[in-house]
């Protein structure tokens, strides 16, 4: 038994924890972020200081946060799971009461210079709480109706608050993220079948409600659905972005038009090309090869996370890893599916690549938890 093997068999302590980080994950995250910087330079027409530079600073800060959180032992996370959830929930209520009106929805709360988006924080704390719940719950009770109802309520309560902001996208993310965690915890598949059936029924009802006085969605949300179902119906209006996005993406071909050579991206046909539509720019300029590379990196990130979770005998830590990586997975797959015209336009960022601070910070916070779970796994 070598010295190293002997050490690894124990939970590391102090500064040496840094040796036990999930290093492949760190490099993968940095690689994806670098692709993001490159694309931000491209959409700024070659200028670094427009978007790429501030994004680099934020990413560096994010890395520091991630590594810092990796040092925090799991008992602490378990301990704060309930208070964190309660805090986030109260913040959501506060947003509802005093939130700043922004982008047509109440999503922010101003505390001095910090602009808080509690719905984003809730994504993390919901994962924490559910992981703690299923860690605590005896395995034979997992699929008992009462013990299923509790996490469902824990998911739906904040979801309802986010939905009335109104922020349909984040609500879906919360439900889907919670669902992934319940799935991983081993809740009977029958429940999922029932929920999916109910969701189909709900969608039918929502569509039926259009134009009546009990209309369940805003008009603009209905228009998004229309646009999704038939983008060509209104090519000058809402469907325009999707059509142009598909044209740009498809025209990239096998190897793309080259860095900063995307003709569609150069023209101002996409209003959010540095945020929501940045994948289009990548796909146009670097083609199938470039787009698949990013998708491959994302898949590897998920893969390393799942491997870490599967090999972790600490159920709480494993569930956290699955939940965070599941949220990350939802982020990039929804964004890619949207720009390829497979989902209604929702306005979601491409994780680690899109310009923007809040989502990046939440992601790095999440990866900090994943790293903590990895570092402190039982040996």
């Amino acid at each position, binding site marked *: 038994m070598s010295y190293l093997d002997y050490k690894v068999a124990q939970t590391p302590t102090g500064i040496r924890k840094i040796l036990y980080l999930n290093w492949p994950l760190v490099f993968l995250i940095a690689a994806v972020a670098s692709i993001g910087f490159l694309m931000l330079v491209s959409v700024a027409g070659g200028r670094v200081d427009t978007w790429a530079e501030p994004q680099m600073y934020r990413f560096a800060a994010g890395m520091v946060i991630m590594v810092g959180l990796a040092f925090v032992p799991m008992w602490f996370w378990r301990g704060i799971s309930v208070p964190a959830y309660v805090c986030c929930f109260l913040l959501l209520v506060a947003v509802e009461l005093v939130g700043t009106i922004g982008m047509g929805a109440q999503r922010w709360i101003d505390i001095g210079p910090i602009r808080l988006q509690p719905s984003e924080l809730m994504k993390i704390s919901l994962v924490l709480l559910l992981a703690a719940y299923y860690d605590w719950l005896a395995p034979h009770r997992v699929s008992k109706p009462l013990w299923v109802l509790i996490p469902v309520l824990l998911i739906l309560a904040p979801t309802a608050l986010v939905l009335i902001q109104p922020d349909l996208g984040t609500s879906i993310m919360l439900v889907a993220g919670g669902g992934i965690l319940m799935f991983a915890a081993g809740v009977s598949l029958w429940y999922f079948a029932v929920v999916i059936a109910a969701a189909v029924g709900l969608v039918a009802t929502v569509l039926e409600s259009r134009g009546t006085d009990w209309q369940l969605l805003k008009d603009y949300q209905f228009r998004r659905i229309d646009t999704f179902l038939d983008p060509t119906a209104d090519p000058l209006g809402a469907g325009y972005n999707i059509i142009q996005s598909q044209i740009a993406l498809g*025209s990239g071909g*096998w190897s793309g038009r080259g860095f900063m050579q995307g003709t569609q991206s150069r023209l101002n046909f996409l209003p959010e090309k540095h945020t929501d539509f940045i994948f289009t720019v990548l796909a146009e300029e670097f083609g199938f090869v470039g787009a698949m590379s990013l998708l491959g990196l994302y898949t590897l990130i998920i893969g390393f996370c799942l491997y870490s979770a599967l090999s972790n005998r600490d159920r709480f830590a494993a569930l956290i890893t699955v939940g965070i990586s599941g949220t990350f*997975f939802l982020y990039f797959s929804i964004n890619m599916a949207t720009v*390829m015209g497979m989902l209604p336009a929702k306005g979601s960022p491409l994780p680690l690549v899109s310009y923007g601070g809040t989502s990046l910070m939440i992601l790095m916070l999440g990866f900090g938890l994943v790293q903590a779970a990895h570092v402190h*796994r039982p040996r």
Partner: protein
Amino acid sequence: MTRTPRQTGDTGRGIGRRGLLLAGIQLGVVTTLALKLRSMQVEHAEEYRMLADGNSIKIRLLVPARGLIHDRNGIVIAGNEQNYRVTLTREEAGGDVEPVLRRLARLIPISDARMAELLDEFSRRSAITPIVLADRLTWEQFSSIAVNAPALAGVTPESGLSRVYPRGGDMAHVLGYVGPVSDYDLSKIENPDPVLMLPEFQLGKVGFEARMEEHLRGKAGQRRVEVNSAGREMRQLSRQEGEQGATVQMTLDARLQNYAAQRMGSESAAAVVIDCQTGDIVTICSSPSFDPNKFVRGISSPDYKALMNHDHRPLADKTVQGVYPPGSTFKMVTLLAGLDSGVINAGSRFYCPGYTEVGGRRFHCWRRGGHGSVDAVTSLSHSCDVYYYELAQKVGIDRIAAMARRLGLGQRHDLPMSAVAEGIAPDRAWKQARHGQAWQVGDSLNASIGQGYVLASPLQLAVMTARIASGREVRPRLVRAIDGVAHPVADFPALDVDPAFLRVARAGMDAVMNSESGTAKRSRIIREEWRMAGKTGTSQVRNITAAERARGVVSNEQLPWNRRDHALFVCYAPYEAPRYAVSVVVEHGGGGSTAAAPIARDILLFALNGGLPPLDAVPGDQRDAMEERHNAMHLFTPDAPRLSRA
């Protein structure tokens, strides 16, 4: 080393099977995304590439409608009209434009010369540039082209807005005009608005239009269009209309301006009417005038030559750009300088024998026989020159010049018009700087009666009169409101001259009109409530040679037109509560009392009456002539809705 379960949470229960299942589902989603990518970027790449090349998006600017200009009563004096025109793009015509042009020539007249010009232009310009074939078509021509469009490949009938001046020449000088942007215009503008590059854009070239350009221009709209690889427009994606420029209300009264223009007729003259209390320029009219609409549409070369060669200089703005020796209208300045400096008082008298001798040189009074003993009031009413020769020697030129500047002469009034002249209120320093010579006593004598180096524009004379009449430092203005937001009327400070002295000058001006021996008593107003005060001026435009002097005084009528004296007149009314001040200059008109005073009086009457001068306001013997004049005029009677009444 011991580990507690609490520290590690090692419960030995991972997530096992479900984790693998989840991984499988996620892998499935990723595979779906990858397959979709492959389908779009590999299998259907060619189709998308064609779509991408076929539709680039361009932003095309829309020329904003230029802001309207209203007169003080809301009458439109600069507006926009529909302009129908046709353009042709060579690419769309199939490369050869000639057959299309020949077919078009059957619908609208295109001369052979124009045809050759167009063919030349098409051969020089890019195939995708639309070129204007014909402008200002009638609706009939325009619609016949639209109907025949299928047979005229590449021809596009377009309609846009173009500037129009409904009052024609009445306000040509003050308003100026707009025109297409020239390379010279662009070279003068730093960082020009991209809308200036559009061929149909009209830029303010001179006058008010040019000075108020930033208010009148508005904001360009945008059209997003899809264009093919050749740059030709395929379809419009969105259209955002521009913002029309601000509506600017001027202080001018279109009716009075029209009357003034007609009253001056074919004389080479200028008239300015200013509100004594507010400084509003109610009329500022230069005669003869020109039709600014011709400049907007592109003036023909013979028309332009005719304007350039006209000896009455119709293109020059005589109101602010033209400067004249003010002649005797300057005497109020010299008198006030004398009173203000304490050299004389109202009762001081000088003896006029008909001339003054200074340094062995005789300076003549206009009246050879002399005026005898003259005081301040009679010096004005008789316009005695010797009184001012004597006074000038006592006061000195520097104090006269200072008074002139206080009254608004020799300084540039900040009006939004082109080439506003500064005039000259000469003093010792000025002559030294300008001519490098010392001031002579003779210069003072000439300056004291508004001759020699003194130069003033009709605008400055009107401001001077308004300041004397109101006792306030009146400053002229032309803008009354922008976009309905009224510009506040300034509360002018009191003039830095003792009101008692101003009363003396006013009494003198009153005597000019209303005393038995007043030089302009023929042009008086006989209605007491409009009692008028004024001052005549006649300024030499030539030096009288010794030979001429030997032959005796030559009357103006015997001289060729361009060597006759300028006739000037300034006045205001009512005497007790001054409302309007008027200045009139008639170039080479002869005497101020005969050529300028009647015009100024009639314009003043129109302003006071708010309409044609009533016949009973002028002395009986002039009524028939006045009526005849009125009947011969084609007066402007606005039927446009009045927005507000001053």
